[in-house]
């Protein structure tokens, strides 16, 4: 292992924006060593600070919100008043200092602030800029405002969740924002790769809507090709039976699936119903689908007296695809996630210890890490403006006196 070498060592990023879609990109890159500066203002702090719980001791406060910190760990936090001309000059200095700007304002806003890509690259020709918004920077609905939770409906996810004869279902939070932030991170890293080769920057226009559609690419191709419209099907799958969730003792559930008659026979053996496994009528996928009610009755009779995690261990031992339906609380006790060190606890000045989410992938030579809690508002003004930008104490005090850091 290269002790101390970080994948993105020396890469400097400035974020203008808030909520999830922009800052989550920065978090992913910060966890692998990029220096990321998150810009807010005293009058317009990141919306995740005050608009979304939870808060420390359930008391809302500008620095007590866990939603904000969760997506902004390992970053520096500064305040710049972008309505103030001196603030815009300060923002420009930051943009000249960095390699990458990430912004998720409505299309056109960053240009009107004098911080658009065309303007910034005059003084920083190698700049990479990621603009991410609902619909992308162009098109007849480019200016549509919106929340990711509702955009998940437009992009097809809600309509594909639920029973066929029931209403669509919500997905938790702004589901599609995290699709877009993950894909946005790949675009930024690809642009960095090109910059290493050529020295040239890039302007990356990401539509969160379009990103979401890549997660439904097969269903969309199916429609374009055959006219078949994908429908919500509860937990059914065309290629497996049984395939669903089963209530266990207490409030637990397990999910399981059988992809062959052999696997179904193993399942039947594990639940003491070898008779079903031997039934020739259930030896085919079509036969098991036709007998779904009978199979589900047998499964429910077995699962309802067993704790979900124990039931899953038993069925896995028998060679059956299964897992407990982890509650969000279970994610902190799942032995697999503990073994992977999924959660990193870092101390925040107001919140205290908080669990931060580790990356979903491990790098053997240059591992990622959560290096710090999310910043309190304006926590790093002096560090960033003086140490990173090289401002003298007098210069820093002057811009502060002019309200640039309000």
């Amino acid at each position, binding site marked *: 292992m290269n002790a101390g070498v970080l994948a993105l060592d020396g890469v400097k990023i400035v974020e203008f924006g808030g909520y999830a879609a922009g800052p989550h990109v920065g978090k992913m890159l910060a966890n692998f060593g990029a220096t990321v500066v998150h810009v807010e203002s005293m009058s317009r702090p990141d919306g995740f600070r005050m608009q979304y719980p939870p808060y420390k001791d359930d008391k809302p406060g500008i620095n007590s919100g866990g939603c904000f910190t969760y997506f902004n760990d390992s970053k520096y936090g500064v305040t710049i008043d972008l309505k103030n001309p001196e603030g815009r000059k300060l923002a420009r200095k930051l943009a000249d200092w960095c390699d990458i700007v990430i912004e998720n304002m409505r299309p056109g806003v960053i240009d009107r602030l004098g911080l658009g890509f065309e303007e910034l690259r005059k003084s920083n020709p190698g700049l990479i800029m990621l603009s991410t918004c609902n619909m992308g920077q162009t*098109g007849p609905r480019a200016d549509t405002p919106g929340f990711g939770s509702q955009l998940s409906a437009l992009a097809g996810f809600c309509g594909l969740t639920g029973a066929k004869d029931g209403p669509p279902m919500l997905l938790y939070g702004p589901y599609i924002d995290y699709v877009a932030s993950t894909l946005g991170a790949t675009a930024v890293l690809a642009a960095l790769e090109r910059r290493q080769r050529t020295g040239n920057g890039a302007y990356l226009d990401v539509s969160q809507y379009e990103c979401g559609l890549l997660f439904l690419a097969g269903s969309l191709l199916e429609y374009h090709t055959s006219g078949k419209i994908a429908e919500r099907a509860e937990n059914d799958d065309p290629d497996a039976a049984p395939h669903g969730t089963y209530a266990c003792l207490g409030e637990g559930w397990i999910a399981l699936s059988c992809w062959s008659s052999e696997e179904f026979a193993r399942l039947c053996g594990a639940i003491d119903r070898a008779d079903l496994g031997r039934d020739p009528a259930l030896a085919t996928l079509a036969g098991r689908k036709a007998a779904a009610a009978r199979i589900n009755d047998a499964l429910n009779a077995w699962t309802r007296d067993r704790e979900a995690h124990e039931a899953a261990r038993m069925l896995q031992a028998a060679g059956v695809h299964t897992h407990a339906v982890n509650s969000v609380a279970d994610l902190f006790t799942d032995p697999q996630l503990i073994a992977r060190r999924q959660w990193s606890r870092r101390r925040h000045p107001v919140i205290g210890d908080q669990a931060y989410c580790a990356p979903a992938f491990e790098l053997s030579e240059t591992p990622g890490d959560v290096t710090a809690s999310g910043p309190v508002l304006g926590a790093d003004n002096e560090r960033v403006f003086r140490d990173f930008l090289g401002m003298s104490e007098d210069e820093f005090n002057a811009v502060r006196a002019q309200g640039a850091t309000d």
Partner: protein
Amino acid sequence: MLQQTGRIGRGPSFSGSNMEPMLQGCMVLDYTGRMGWLAGRLLADLGAEVTKFEAQGADVSSADWRALNVNKRLVRVDPADPDGRRALDQYAATADILIATPATADEADLYDYARLSAVNKRLIVVAITPFGLTGPKTGWQATDIEIMAAGGAMALAGEPDGAPLRVSATQSYAWAGSQAAVGALMALAARWRTGRGQRVVVSAQSAVITALSHAPTFVDMLGITPTRAGAYMTGRSVTGAKYRVFWPCRDGYINFIVYGGAAGRRTNEQLVAWMRERGFDLGPLGDIDWARFTPTGASQAEVDSMELPIGRFIGSLTKREFLEEAHRREMLGYPVSNTADIAADPQLEARGFWQDLPGPDGTERHCGCFVVVDGVRPPLVRPADDTGKIRRQARET
């Protein structure tokens, strides 16, 4: 003829070397099963030269296969055969990234980083599995539904008193594949600093946690476990009132929420104005001062009385009507689209999102690259497979 993608976006007019694809020259070997297909697709769309390996006779006709393996070169070879293994090592000697979904001990050996790095020390080896390569559940078998369950996503989808649900189109593989693409490119960035490749291990279970937004913070900070919300929004009123999210309309459903705050005010005022123009009974909506309205104090009876006229109005609209008029009025809310609605969305057409490529029955329409780079959407440059062969097979049957 492959479709040429023209300039559609804002951004600079680059010329010369800067127009080259971002991952030009990056050689990727894609040995993945279903769980990893999206990883190579994303890298291909960003300009990498991706070769997809499939055993002779492996089915490549499904919509999922074709949608997620378009833009890759298909090579028919089975890495489990001696010849296939030799070919793998030959390819690996000059490649930058190898992506695999090892599911058996043999596959784990085949795609073992130590073995492959002896062939090429600059090679990045990405392994995507349900639970990673270490830990007590490494050997557990899981497909999409089990991974969605393990990652916590199913606990958050469905009716509060009903069964946990997955999205009916496979999602966990997309989460795993996209995180694998991030990991591969992170390792590529590291290679500029270390001169060496490395192993990247993706846990699909962990990748799904990305989808949970900040739900874990409720458990961590308050000891509250978020649960399924069904088709209603709860937790916004101190009285416990629930707000409808999905409203039946003439041809499906609309996602519309009575919000408070600045965005809610604009939306609610515009909804009332729209209803008034259409001559709909406003009920109690006409008397509400939206500048002062907050959803936090309303009782269920008050919410129900507000929602009655809204429901009648939305019930008179089509999805397309709502989409266009809500946009014109700068209202929040979207239709619950199906794949047919998405396929006909003018926004996607205007941005050149779709790309037509040769397919077994003529032309097939794919999702294009997810990002517009320097004002141009990078074109897909390869169809999904050897379509000539598929045509021959179709004729023979």
